């Protein structure tokens, strides 16, 4: 028997055995199968590797290698105008990270501002969009609602439209003399020049209570930004983007909640009804716990997505009121020709997302399913 024939018969035997374990004839003819290391299963492993090979290669080339390269770049001073492995790039170890975090510079100040902006962005967007998505999903899940598919499409529509197009529409709506301010004019309110306004919302609220400038304790600086500035709240320009993003993404998350809601067995709800639960009790004590996996998914996706917000910021332009770490990373790399610093910023952001996602996972639940 030649080697391929041997393999073929081995294979055939394996399948038959699995199918009919009690076949006596097979058993009498069977010889010891552990002749070679790995044996039959080993060959299956190779076949498996062959099948996942192309996929693995794609992942390796387009995911693992770029990430590794980006990390290498973050350890260099590279202007992007020559090969990163040539003379154009100087290996500087952790210098980029050190200067971003410890040296008093414009870049550090920009980083602090962008982290602050993004923090408030996340703080407002994630809870509101989750609640809104859940609310819409519960509404749509109502058995007696008419025109369900119409509403589903309507709520989902902003999610499938190009974010660039929607952002442009918002830019027009929120111009100084745009539709929003015209409407406000009707009711006698003079609206701000939304997208150019870098004043913090919390500062504006405090102003109503007569707090106009930083109290002494808030004058101390952390990463080039005084505590007063850290506590400014989202800028008015950022508020526009917060509204925009809540509006566009809650549709996607609504679908996730809707799918989860439809998975809840009706019997469970009926049982709670028979036990005398009010509608609110039923929602709080039955529906919500059963939605926990979906809730965790939505919160995690929301958190990661909001820390990476870029297109909306890119379109509103380079404005300290709205810059985020993702935009700053792009700006440092391509506009300012400091690819090392840009890459370092994105890795710092990566670390931040990991830390926050872990915390959030701990807070929301055990995370058994995800």
């Amino acid at each position, binding site marked *: 028997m*030649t*080697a*391929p024939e041997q*393999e073929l018969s081995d294979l055939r035997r394996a399948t038959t055995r699995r199918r009919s374990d009690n076949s006596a004839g097979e058993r009498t003819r069977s010889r010891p199968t552990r002749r070679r290391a790995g044996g039959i299963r*080993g*060959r299956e492993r*190779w*076949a498996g*590797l*062959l099948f996942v*090979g*192309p996929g693995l*290669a*794609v992942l*390796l*080339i387009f995911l693992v290698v770029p990430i590794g390269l980006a990390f290498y770049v973050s350890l260099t001073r590279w*202007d*992007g*105008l*020559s*090969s*990163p492995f040539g003379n*154009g790039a100087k290996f500087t170890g952790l210098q980029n990270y050190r200067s971003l975090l410890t040296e008093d*510079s*414009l*870049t550090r100040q*920009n980083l602090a501002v962008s982290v602050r902006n993004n923090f408030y962005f996340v703080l407002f967007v994630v809870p509101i969009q989750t609640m809104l998505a859940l609310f819409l999903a519960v509404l749509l899940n109502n058995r007696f609602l008419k025109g369900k598919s119409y509403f589903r499409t309507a709520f989902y529509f902003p999610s499938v439209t190009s974010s660039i197009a929607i952002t442009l529409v918002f830019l027009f709506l929120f*111009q*100084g*003399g*745009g539709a929003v301010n015209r409407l406000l004019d009707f009711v006698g309110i003079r609206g701000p*020049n939304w*997208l*150019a306004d*870098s004043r913090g919302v919390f500062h504006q609220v405090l102003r109503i209570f007569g707090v106009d400038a930083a109290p002494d304790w808030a004058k101390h600086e952390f990463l080039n930004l005084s505590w007063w500035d850290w506590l400014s709240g989202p800028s008015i320009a950022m508020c526009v983007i917060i509204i925009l993003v809540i509006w566009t993404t809650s549709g996607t998350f609504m679908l996730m909640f809707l799918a989860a809601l439809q998975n809840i067995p009706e019997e469970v709800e009926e049982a709670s009804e028979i036990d005398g639960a009010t509608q609110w009790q039923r929602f709080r004590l039955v529906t919500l716990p059963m939605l926990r996996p979906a809730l965790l998914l939505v919160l995690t996706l929301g958190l990661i997505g909001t820390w990476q917000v870029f297109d909306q910021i890119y379109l509103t332009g*380079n*404005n*300290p009121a709205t810059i985020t770490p993702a935009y700053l990373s792009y*700006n*440092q790399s*391509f*506009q*300012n*020709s*400091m690819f090392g610093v840009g890459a370092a910023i994105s890795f710092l952001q990566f670390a931040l997302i990991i830390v926050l996602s872990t915390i959030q996972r701990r807070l929301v639940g055990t995370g058994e399913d995800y």
Partner: protein
Amino acid sequence: MRIPAARMAVAVAAGVAMLITAACGSSGPSAPKTSAGGGKTTGLHLTLLIGSSGDAETNAVNAAAKAWGTKSGNTVTVTPAKDLTLELTQALAGGSPPDLFYVDASKFAGLVKANALVPYGDQLPNKADFYPSLVKSFSANGKFYCAPKDFSTLALEINTDMWTKAGLTDADIPTNWDQLEAAAKKLTKGGVTGLVFSDTLDRVDAFMRQAGGSLLNADGTEFTANSPENLAGLQYVAKLAKEGVLKFPKQTDTGWGGEAIGKNKAAMTIEGNWIVGGVKSDFPKLHYKVVELPAGPKGKATLSFTNCWGIAQKSKNQAAAIDFVKFLTSTDQQMAFANAFGVMPSVQSAKSQFTAAFPDQQAFVAGADYATGPTSLPGFDQVQKDFDSKILGLSDGSSNPQSMVDDLQKNAEAALKSAG
């Protein structure tokens, strides 16, 4: 065959992986290989990457490439970039840059430092014909690197309908700061602001220079951003902004000065040559005239914006590329470009032809004599953007001119130090 199937599988997988990596590695056309920098100038294939302002420019460059190609026996592929900085960076980082590409004056220093450009300027026969200020923009380490493609200068554009309606005549055209302020005051009424220009250092710098200041010292080694002269220029801008006779496009719901004047929200604006084409297509009914920027306390000054024809150090067709540039920068070809998409020729010999063809644009040409180029320094971009973001605050007094120039100085020094 005695090869076990398993080993074959590995071989196949490895082969596939190699094919994929190979395909990724060798992007770009397989140009005929000649010895680097060799004298061969025919039968070659050149690549040219341009940052086009629109179809008019792309078509004109294509036509020029075809004309030179037929004359010299070469072929040229012209690629209009969607984002020139981005695409050029990618090409250079990948090690296969186009032979020829536009170089913005503000990116010039970075490219020189990365040794990406061939310093061929001194080989050009019409070297002395280029405007000296443009040659200076593209010179470094005592070498003239690349031929200026064309240029634009800043000038003052006036809406003539509003001008006459406000009772102003040609005699009132501002020639100094006080007159500019007076005219802006007279023109500001209702929804119209006297003067609107973009909130960027690329406008404010002109006022700083009119006040006798400059961002860098004469030999470009040190920043002098917080000099009293620069402060005076910025304070003048701040004064107009506070009086409400100067506004910035964001405050008038427009994107730039041309749109502000075109939509009748501004009576005057400060823009470069590009406003001519922009206004012609978007606001054909606008009546306006272009005059020189008014002089400051220390005389006239304006800013120039320019590109050059960069030749890649890595190009295999350098000799042919230089020949192509000679053709592109010739007086006739530059006039063809001027006719096609409204730029100003970079050679002085085309000056009279240009002013004869475009008498309305006299003021832009006049600016060439006293214009200075932008600050070119790797890492200056974020410094400028930080400054720009504070200009809007001059209107309501939330930005302080003194601290603005102090920050500019501090950040620019840091950029210079880290670039050095």
